[in-house]
């Protein structure tokens, strides 16, 4: 669904980029506000469970009496991949500004590879965690937060893939018109920022 906002154009109006902010980008910014609230609702659940019910005895004990454990270091490395991918997508846009379409292609490709790496490592983490979403509210909030985030990474990848296909096949985007690309990269940055917040709040503190 997210893809819709990015590209549509005003009827009978000047090309969007002539405005200080294009309609597509504006819609994406507002949409990200909405997305932020979705994560806020899930974080509300997390904090209520953690501070109200568990009284911050965190992480709680699992069924065998041990505290739940999260792989801080491995995920930290994974976090670095995602943060790095924000820079690569920025670089891709930057290359387009200089009219370097090959650079744009490469930038998008590297970004997608990094994103995919993140997802694969995350799934691998799920497999080896040793607890499930059904294991107490801890498991429920953990999997729901990271799962929703993973879903957003996936959507972000799809958006980038669409942009990539447009670049390759339709020779889309010019230094003056790149609304869909800007919107997709905004989305990607958002996914990145959410992850950093999530990593700090759920894994570290």
């Amino acid at each position: 669904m997210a893809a819709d906002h990015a590209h549509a154009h005003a009827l009978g109006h000047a090309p969007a980029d002539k405005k200080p902010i294009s309609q597509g980008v504006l819609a994406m910014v507002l949409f990200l506000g909405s997305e932020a609230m979705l994560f806020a609702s899930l974080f509300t659940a997390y904090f209520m469970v953690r501070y109200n019910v568990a009284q911050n005895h965190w992480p709680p004990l699992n069924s065998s009496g041990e505290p739940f454990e999260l792989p801080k270091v491995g995920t930290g490395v994974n976090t670095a991949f995602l943060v790095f991918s924000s820079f690569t997508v920025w670089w891709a846009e930057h290359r387009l500004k200089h009219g370097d379409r090959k650079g744009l292609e490469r930038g998008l490709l590297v970004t997608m590879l990094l994103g995919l790496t993140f997802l694969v490592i995350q799934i691998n983490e799920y497999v080896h965690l040793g607890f499930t979403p059904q294991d107490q509210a801890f498991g429920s909030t953990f999997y729901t937060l990271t799962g929703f985030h993973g879903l957003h990474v996936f959507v972000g990848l799809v958006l980038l893939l669409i942009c990539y296909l447009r670049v390759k096949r339709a020779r889309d985007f010019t230094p003056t018109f790149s609304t869909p690309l800007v919107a997709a990269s905004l989305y990607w940055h958002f996914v990145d920022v959410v992850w950093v917040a999530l990593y700090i709040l759920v894994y570290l503190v």
Partner: protein
Amino acid sequence: MATYQPTHAHTGHHHVHGPTRSAWDYWKRAIVGVITGVVLGFIITFLARWLFGFDGLWASQVYWSVCATLAGLGFIIGIGCFDWWWDYLRGRKVDYEDHSLHGARSIGDYFRPNTDHKVIGIQYLVLTFGMFIVGGILAELVRLELAFPGQTIADGETYNGFFSGHATVMIFGFVIPVFGGLANYILPIMIGAKDMAFPRLNALSFWLLVPAGVMLGLAQFVGAFSAGWTAYTPLALQGTTGQTLFEIAVQFAGASSIATALNFLVTVMTMRAPGMTVWRMPLFVWAQSVTAGLVVFGTPFIAGSQFMTWFDRVMGTNFFNVGGGGDVLMYQHVFWFYSHPAVYIMMLPGFGIISDVISTFARKPLFGYRALAFSTVAIAVLGFGVWAHHMFVSGMPGWLRFPMMIMTIVIAVPTGVKVFSWLGTMWGGKIHLKTPMLWAMGFVFTFVIGGLSGVFLGTLPADIQLTDTYYVVAHIHYVFFGGSVFTIFAGLYYWFPKMTGRMYNERLGQIHFWLTFVGFNATFFPMHWLGAVGMPRRVADYDERFADLNLFISIASLGMVIGTAIFFYNAINSWIRGPKAPWNPWRGRSLEWLVSSPPSLFNFDAVPQVVGGPYQYGLPGARHAVIFAGEDLGGGELTEVDRRTMLVVANESVGSQALTDRVRQLAASGVWRFTFLMPVEDGNNRAAERRLQSALSVLAAEGIDANGSVVSGDPLSAIRTAVADDDPQQILLVTQPRGASPWLDRDMVDRVRKASNRAVTHMVISGDDARTPTRSSAVQTIAVVANDAMGEGLATAVQERADGGPVSAVVLCPLSLDGPGWTDDAESVRDAAAERARAVIASLQEAGIPARGEVIDGDPAEAARIARDSYGATSVLVGTIAGRGDADIVEAVTAAAQPVPVEHVFVEAAPPAL
């Protein structure tokens, strides 16, 4: 029905190709999409559960969840919402300005994805009013169960399904999206835009609502969700399939409203016409924008809450399971953090509509325009800080209670500002009590009661007593029904002429209002009392001592049912055959009134330039906008405000050829618009209303800007009022010739001149001329052919047809004499026939239907031919006396009248013998 024709010769810079596929093609794909979704969902779920070895291979709720979700998506993809995107992501060349799905040329175009905001508006309205009927039926089932103590029609669980379904359908299926419908149609025009910012996203928003509606309806039959629209945990966790469908439907509806809201925000931010500063926006635009903000930032919270309940139920997570370290109360916090703002999502757009309607019908600038705008923002912001007033007795932390109480009471302040602004607008205004205004004033009355009961509920000690009783039910209905729904009707009647191009029937509209207003108060006011003495809400059975009032309430609720039935009849009937509506029937000032009804494909043929506020009624020379026509349209200004008003004071001659010709002649000069004033002294308003309607629709069909009203009582004071209201430049006073005119006997011309201080032109139209109806394709000519059946029965039949649209009548009495026509016998037969015809003509004229006629020496077939050829009849009514077997006459007439349609009317009793 309304299909869009360009108003002026279209300038042609939009490339609009007609759609190549019919609506049915889209639906075939949609059906395939749904079936694919279900099958795919089933296979995926089965394989996943089997491969990963989940225990419970057949966990039914998992299957329902996946299948319903994929079926919904399959529907949207199948119906074609993503076709454009499919081309886009395959790297095809796409046209960003693709208008191939824009606009409706036939009814079928309303049943497929359409990117025209006007079509989408109508689609929303029709779908949501369908949901209104579903919700209404459930409400009556609730009232039936509660009519008597004990079990009446349903056991407890079924009853829970009824009230939960009722509230959910009404809230998520009607009130929230119906404003999306009104705003979709009106808002872009109000700000001078040609469409919404994202037309394809707009279509998607609408079609997302369809699966949501279907799932909510379907849920009633597969084990209804029964935990209320609030779906509190842990109760909701016990729900079955219905609860699953509820959770998915809410996601679809939520996605739909977020998408529309983004669209509205971007549209208002970037597409306002030149000169349309935020302080010149009509308040409906303000309200809808602020609402959109609430939707964008609030709705994700209900999405979150429903995701979590869904996971708990279907996947066995522990969000709300205390045993697993979860937090039950957390549900209520997350839910109300959306749902309190949601009550304003359902109310703010209505506030906007009311501001527009009251200002227009009080003919006064809005009192406190900026205060109204700011208070809208204030309510929205404060609305995020009061959610826990729904949770005072839930066991939440005690310290939260007091701040929530204070914030709640503080919200009453901006709300009060609004009420006083509306009252201030009406104060000293020239109130025109048309249907939209009745709803608006009814709204102010009921909403004040609802707001006051809200303050009681927001007060902690009172709420501890009143919560979960019928007092809360009274409150929510005073704010939802007396609030939101009244504003919806106000808006619907107000913009009906604009949206359909037809006038609704004013009398039925007023009956609808009064039945609903009285029925509403009789139904819900006693609930305050029931609640205060302790009747709990959401329970199927109750104590004997509440029995009498409950029975009374159940009976009173039927008033609203009848009112609603009348509304639907009126809306559908007027939409199909109502009289043509003028551009600006209410003399409104905002931009939607400067375009045709319905507006052309892209609303404006030239970009409007906004030059002032939208509510400057009665300020000389003030104007909201000017529209300059393009070169190809002859240039010049298209604004109606610069045309001068001519007040036409007339009675019998309204609708006659003579007067219509005069008006046409004046209109041709381009500087005049017309306000008809029909002072009626003998109390027969109905006849005058009919003549007026018919005259106005003839003029509207020709593009002449005219409106008017019928006023009882003293003509002079009516003229004085009209002059103050409309500030006409001139008055055209039409009377009968001297001697036949009571007005002239009273020296009216001079007195009007003195009273109005305006130039008065006097026009004389003789009685005969006044009875000659206007020839126009907008008027149906009904020929009445009958001999001894000629009488009241036929007159009534013509009147019934006249209720549907303008008609004139030709009364023909064929004699079919056996012998020679010159004998005394023949003469007396002829006289008697003429007498009968004259009586019918008189009776029709009495009813406001122009009628003429003659006696014909010939058979009925001959009369039918004459009706067709000499009178240009568009339909023929043949009357025969019941039980005499005149089938051959009817056949002969039908054959003779070809191709004019013939209808047969039986007249009951024989007319008095001579």
